């Protein structure tokens, strides 16, 4: 098969050894690359009983067939392993250029296991692999560590690092690259920390042969031109290149999709007026900050020039200011951006950070936590300074509450008790993202049934059927009426298709945000075919997504998933809000919807893939 190297680099930090291993074609034909390949590595190498911080955990950094082509969105790559937050297999996508560089080094993935005797970083320079001392980097934040590695190793290296939160095993610590993109949600920064791994630098000079270079080149040009033209055709305030994901605020608000006050309110007009939109661009002096080859440019480089929250760097994404702003009733755009960048430097997932703080704020409101617990900080709704100070406490893992919140709100609520489990908005140990299930019930179903990375909004982004009007017409999901957002009819099918869709995107690997400028499944399929020569149809592509989902489910089972885990949703799911368009709406019928989803997938009523289903997918045995 073209578009891949058929080899992965395996690094054992305990033994300080590196070796290249062959991966046969059928593995790629089944699971493509990226998150699919990372799941396959776990299947092959990580038995039952291995936990996230076990040296035997495999941290896989994986490219797919698309890395190396000059298409907007093709600079994405993936991370996989056992997650410290959910203690199961998980995946995360990240962007900029590390994946492209890794591919140019002649490998499809780097698989890291073992634990170093002292802090190290890895340098991959084409075929040459070195494990180097990182003692002097330990304790630096993620950006400082990146600067130090790049200064030491020289130009041309793409680098990933984790900050102090990763070193100190915050369970939602992330991995960063280029001071702008993050493998978030499932705590892979802490997996790096557990291995005493501070960073990885990679540089390569090779170009991976693809099946149809001329066809691919023409396709890339047409797609890039069209995506740029679509974005440029929009009014300024809807241009991705002008605003990025901060566009979401104004349009999520009328749909009841925002998370407000730990999901207890349906509206927050002051926040809507101040967070996102034009105030975002003006307050933060936001400028586009494109990833390699990207024409839509959703990332922003920001600068707050004065005041207590002066900073220069990454601008917050929608999820960040939703969870750290709306969810804490904070409407100070600069404070939220500053705290977000602080979290980035420590390497903390801003969704989980916002959620654990919202849990703590609610504890404070209800007298479960007092000033004695909070270092004297007033955890009152809307207190921007509290957000900033508590971000530091968690990043530093300050003894007491700061440390506890780094464990996530499931563990924190179990330790604190006093009924606080009732307002811990998490599932399976991972905090829920910034899409409100009351605005579209399918979000509740997705959070309950996700197999790729816990309750993850980007591993089954079916909320976009309504909140983004993103459909999958090639797979039978086209225009859907607004009222269906509160219906379970067809929810099983839609949920399954979006899970599979996310899997093919995250395994090819491509950027889901391109779809908002009109990138289609037809584009994706044509690109995969020109890269690989697989000559797939849309049915084949869907089947590939189905295979990856089933492999992830088999891994869930291996690592201890039980049926009841899908049904232990947050109590807040069934608590209505009294304001906004979703007032009074709660996803009654969710339990049956979960079972319907299992059945749609060809799983038994306990949520396990049946032998018949695995046979249909050719997965009686897993290739490789």
């Amino acid at each position: 098969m073209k578009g891949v190297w058929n080899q992965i680099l395996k690094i054992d930090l305990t033994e300080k050894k590196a070796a290249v291993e062959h991966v046969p074609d059928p593995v790629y034909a089944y699971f493509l690359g990226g998150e699919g390949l990372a799941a396959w590595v776990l299947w092959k190498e990580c038995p039952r009983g291995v936990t996230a911080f076990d040296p035997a955990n495999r941290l896989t950094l994986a490219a797919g067939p698309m890395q190396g082509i000059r298409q907007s969105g093709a600079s994405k790559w993936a991370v996989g392993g056992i997650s410290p937050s959910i203690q199961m297999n998980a995946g995360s996508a990240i962007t900029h250029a590390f994946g492209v560089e890794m591919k140019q080094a002649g490998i499809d993935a780097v698989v890291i296991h073992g634990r170093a005797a002292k802090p190290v970083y890895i340098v991959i320079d084409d075929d040459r692999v070195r494990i180097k001392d990182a003692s002097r980097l330990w304790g630096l934040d993620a950006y400082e560590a990146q600067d130090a590695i790049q200064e030491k190793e020289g130009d041309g290296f793409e680098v990933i690092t984790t900050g102090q939160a990763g070193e100190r095993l915050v369970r939602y610590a992330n991995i960063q690259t280029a001071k702008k993109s993050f493998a978030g949600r499932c705590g892979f920064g802490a997996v790096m920390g557990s291995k005493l791994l501070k960073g990885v630098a990679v540089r390569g000079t090779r170009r991976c042969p693809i099946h149809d270079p001329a066809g691919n080149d023409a396709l890339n040009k047409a797609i890039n031109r069209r995506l740029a033209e679509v974005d440029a055709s929009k009014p300024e305030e809807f241009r991705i290149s002008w605003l990025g994901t901060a566009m979401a605020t104004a349009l999520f608000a009328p749909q009841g999709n925002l998370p407000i006050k730990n999901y207890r309110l349906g509206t927050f007009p002051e926040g809507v007026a101040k967070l996102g939109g034009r105030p975002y661009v003006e307050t933060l002096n936001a400028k586009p900050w494109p990833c390699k080859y990207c024409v839509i440019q959703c990332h922003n480089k920001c600068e707050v020039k004065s005041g207590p929250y002066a900073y220069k760097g990454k601008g917050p994404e929608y999820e960040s200011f939703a969870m750290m702003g709306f969810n804490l009733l904070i409407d100070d755009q600069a404070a939220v951006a500053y705290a977000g960048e602080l979290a980035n430097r420590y390497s903390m997932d801003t969704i989980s950070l916002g959620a654990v703080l919202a849990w703590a704020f609610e504890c404070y409101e209800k007298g479960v936590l007092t000033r004695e617990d909070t270092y004297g900080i007033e955890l009152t709704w809307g207190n921007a300074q509290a957000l900033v100070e508590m971000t530091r406490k968690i990043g530093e893992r300050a003894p007491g509450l700061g440390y506890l919140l780094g464990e996530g709100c499931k563990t924190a609520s179990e330790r604190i008790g006093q009924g606080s489990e009732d307002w811990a908005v998490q599932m399976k140990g991972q905090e829920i993202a910034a899409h409100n299930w009351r605005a579209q019930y399918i979000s509740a179903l997705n959070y309950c049934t996700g197999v790729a990375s816990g309750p993850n909004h980007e591993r089954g982004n079916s909320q976009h059927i309504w909140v983004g009007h993103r459909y999958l017409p090639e797979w039978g999901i086209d225009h859907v009426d607004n009222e269906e957002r509160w219906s379970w009819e067809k929810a099983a099918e839609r949920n399954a298709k979006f899970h599979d869709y996310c899997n093919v995107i995250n395994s090819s690997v491509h950027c889901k945000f391109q779809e908002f400028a009109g990138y289609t499944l037809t584009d994706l399929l044509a690109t995969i075919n020109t890269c690989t020569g697989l000559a797939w149809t849309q049915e084949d592509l869907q089947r590939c997504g189905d295979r990856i989902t089933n492999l992830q489910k088999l891994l869930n089972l291996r690592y201890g998933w039980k049926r009841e885990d899908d049904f232990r949703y947050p109590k807040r799911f069934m608590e209505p809000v009294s304001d906004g368009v979703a007032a009074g709406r709660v996803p009654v019928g969710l339990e049956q919807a979960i079972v319907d989803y299992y059945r749609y997938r060809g799983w038994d009523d306990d949520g396990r893939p049946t032998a018949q289903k695995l046979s249909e997918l050719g997965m009686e045995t897993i290739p490789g």
Partner: protein
Amino acid sequence: MRILVNGNPEEIEPGARLRVLVDRLEARVRDDPMIVALIQKTGKSQLLYILNGTVVRAEEIDRIVLREGDDLRYVHPFFGG
């Protein structure tokens, strides 16, 4: 005559202009709260149309005559994380 809308076949009168189809599609989304909010804010649904891979400018919608097999996509203006 049959054309493709978001990859799915749709019947339309032979010789129809793109405007006919645009009106039909916009009627489907008229009650959507996001579209309502956009119309209130900007006066338009802000749907974008891509015909045979080329973005259609608003002033061309009335002029373009559809042909058998045309491939039309429409994109909502919204983007969010």
